[in-house]
């Protein structure tokens, strides 16, 4: 049941922590939003102001999202993805193929500067 001051997300799950707003800030356009922290406020307008006072007074920022905590849908870690799948999909990383290629005599493996996960 949305209490006064929240936007009231129609979410199932644990009881809403009414009045808590998570604060996400983006400092540069090419960067993603970063989770900065949270504020407690009676309504969205106050949450906006508190976020400004608490997190934004010193930094030059570009955009801010203030999100009622109960509106955030959490995705739990999947132990299957962590364990079995990750160990068994080593071929998803370039480090898997480079030694194979070298061992077979292919020396000039192009480096793709997209980084490893």
């Amino acid at each position, binding site marked *: 049941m949305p209490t006064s001051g929240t936007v009231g997300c129609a979410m199932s799950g644990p009881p809403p922590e009414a009045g808590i707003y998570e604060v996400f800030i983006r*400092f*540069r*356009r*090419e960067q*993603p939003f970063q989770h900065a922290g949270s504020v407690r406020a009676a309504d969205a307008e106050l949450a906006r102001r508190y976020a400004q006072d608490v997190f934004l007074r010193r930094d*030059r920022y*570009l955009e801010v999202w203030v999100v009622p905590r109960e509106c955030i849908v959490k995705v739990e870690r999947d132990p299957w993805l962590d364990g079995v799948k990750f160990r068994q*999909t080593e*071929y*998803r*990383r*370039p480090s*898997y*193929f*480079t030694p*194979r*290629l070298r061992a*077979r*005599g*292919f*020396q*000039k*493996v*192009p480096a*793709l500067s*997209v*980084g490893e*996960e």
Partner: protein
Amino acid sequence: MVSAVEVRLPAPGDVEAFAAYVAAGGLVDAGDWMPEEYRAEAVRIVSFQALAEVIGTLLFAEWLPRIASVHRKRILTAKVQDETGHGHILMRVAEDLGLTREQIMEEYLAGRRKLLNAFHYGFDAYCELPIGALLQNSAAIVQFRSLVKGSYLPYVRALRKIMREESFHFYNALDWTHELMTAGTPRQKAEVEAGLVKWWPIIVAYFGPPDAASVHTQPAMRWRLKVNTNDEVRQAWFSFIVPVLQGLGLTPPDPKLRHDPELGRWEYTEPDWAEVRAVINGAGPRSAYWKELIRRAYERDGWVRHVRAAA
């Protein structure tokens, strides 16, 4: 990279300020105001790639039951999953720009939407897969390296994830081709070489018509949705792929291909652009076949869309 903290975001409705903003390196995000021309050009680029990602899976999915080793079958399954994921990500980007995934698929089925030239073909022999994939993946990586410098952030973010996965596809294709070229039978090597002869001109054409003939380059570059012309990206691909092929003991099947050190560019045989246009318009060897597969799947699985729409 120019930060928007320094570059002032343009006021909604001010087309000239918007054009100056993106020209100066300004980045645009979903939900920002944008001129209609910008939106139309962004959604054209994104939806073109989205459709290609989806249809591109069919070439490989067709061979999955026939892959000779469990190891390569798992890797190729992962690749097909990745490409499907890329399609989903890009269609979501297109939806934010006002084009639904149903529109993309239905326009394709109705013949009102063009498909990337490479996916009007299929693999006609087993050992054609690795070399065909090698050319496709390398072309995609070189092209995405350029596109990721564009101005539309949701597309840039999508490309960053796609590039990570394309790099794994590329290394697999390289490793697979190398395995065949070093340990394969004469027949397998001959199939790889025939595959190179077949796919080379297709991928040279993949980058689009030469700059002088391209109708899309000018608007795409004006809005900095693209930062390089078709010819520039094609040249970058030659520089990337030729040493790789040499390392595999393969020769690019173009007698004119040579790097001119004075001009600093590759000379090559122009693809038959009339033929490429005909292929893109549906005259490719598998154009009708893939479309029919999609038509059947789209009808067969339509109930999922209807249930979702009713929920």
